[in-house]
């Protein structure tokens, strides 16, 4: 039954002009399992994550996320899924705290201010809450972006190269956060070059070459 799977990709293809970023991809991810997505740059990892996040729609094929159709039930999927992308989704001229408060208010939370403070503490940005994001280092931005993801309390977290631009200490931090996410019941789809870290965090693996599934 498809509703018991976290993800169902049925002959999914996505085209950009002449280029097929994903070509006839079929895959099933059972519930409760986390997925490691590997492949070179341009293999289609980011496109796949964006498709699952419903940031874009497939050119052909069907995609089901948590039992819901990614095109017809887009709004519902978005409520359960959160994406950590290459782009940070952060407003440069607002402070870290304000960025989170805007998101939390949009999510309808009762105490956006307090929750934002807690989230900042959790990712180690407690002392930087009132600084504008423009002055943040790459590592700090990544941490704020993760805070943004955690704020959404997703059932499925999509992480596109979360270890990018982090120093070794930062990478350890990130691994810890991802492990925490998993323990709290959130399924994780993780796209990364750091296959070791990925394998330690995920049970399943999907390797892409030029938009197609290939055995790694």
């Amino acid at each position, binding site marked *: 039954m498809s509703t018991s799977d976290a993800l169902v990709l049925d002959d999914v293809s996505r085209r950009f002009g002449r280029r097929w970023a994903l070509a006839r991809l079929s895959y099933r991810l059972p519930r409760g399992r986390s997925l490691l997505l590997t492949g070179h740059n341009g293999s289609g990892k980011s496109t796949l994550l964006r498709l699952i*996040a*419903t*940031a*874009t*729609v497939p050119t052909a094929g069907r995609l089901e996320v948590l039992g819901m159709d990614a095109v017809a039930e*887009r*709004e519902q999927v*978005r*409520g359960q*899924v*959160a*994406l950590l*992308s290459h*782009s*940070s*989704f*952060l*407003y*440069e*001229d*607002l402070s870290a705290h*304000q960025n989170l408060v*805007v*998101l939390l*208010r*949009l*999510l309808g939370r009762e105490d956006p201010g307090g929750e934002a403070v807690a989230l900042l503490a959790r990712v180690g940005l407690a002392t930087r809450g009132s600084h*504008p994001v423009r002055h943040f280092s790459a590592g700090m931005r990544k941490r704020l972006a993760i805070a*943004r993801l955690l704020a*959404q309390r997703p059932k499925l977290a999509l992480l596109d190269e979360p270890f990018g631009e982090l120093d070794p200490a930062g990478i350890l931090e990130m691994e810890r956060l991802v492990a925490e996410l998993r323990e709290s019941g959130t399924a994780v789809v993780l796209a990364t070059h750091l296959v070791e870290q990925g394998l330690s965090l995920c049970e399943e693996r999907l390797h892409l070459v030029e938009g197609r599934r290939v055995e790694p």
Partner: protein
Amino acid sequence: MLSTAWILLNKDLLLEWRTRARLNALVFFALATLLLFSFALGPDSTLLARHAGGYLWLALLFASVLSLGESFRVEQENQCLDGLRLVPTDARALFLSKAVGNTLLLLFLALVLLPVMIALYGVTLSLSPLSLLGVLALGCMAISAPGTVYSAIANHARARDVLLPLLLFPLIVPALLAAVKATTLVLQGDPMGQLTSWVGLLSAFNLIYWGLGLALFPRVVED
């Protein structure tokens, strides 16, 4: 949807405040345009007074190209628009917040230009200040609604700085005509009672384009 729009509007106003240097630049640009009109068209004071409404709206229109373009540039940095979409956020709320924000910005500019115009062109207010405010508000709304839609589109195309005015200017010709006429009547008096027709036209324009904006904007931002 309205509460979401309110949250987003607050976010935009906060961003405007944080980058208020840009706002200052916009004000100076509009003022400079107004001055340039006087220089270009000569110091004949009766002529200037008679056409003051026209110059005001032209200055606002030129400034709007800058402000409208900016309103979506802030969402492009770091793909914030995607970030909002995926929360999820109702695209119509996004349209409302942007269009209202743009209206407020233009209205602010108009109110800043008004005393300058009165001083420079020697105009007087024949009808009530409330009518003037009403006309200004309606005109700013008329520029903002289609402007917001076009700005969202133009920002993702090449030659965006040229595309936005090219798309916007022919479209708002009716609104411009009505706004200028109505402003002139409010400033110089309305012996033949034409104000209602022009205000009616402006209102109809607003009704249609805010409606179209709400209906079509989701298609513009969705991939």
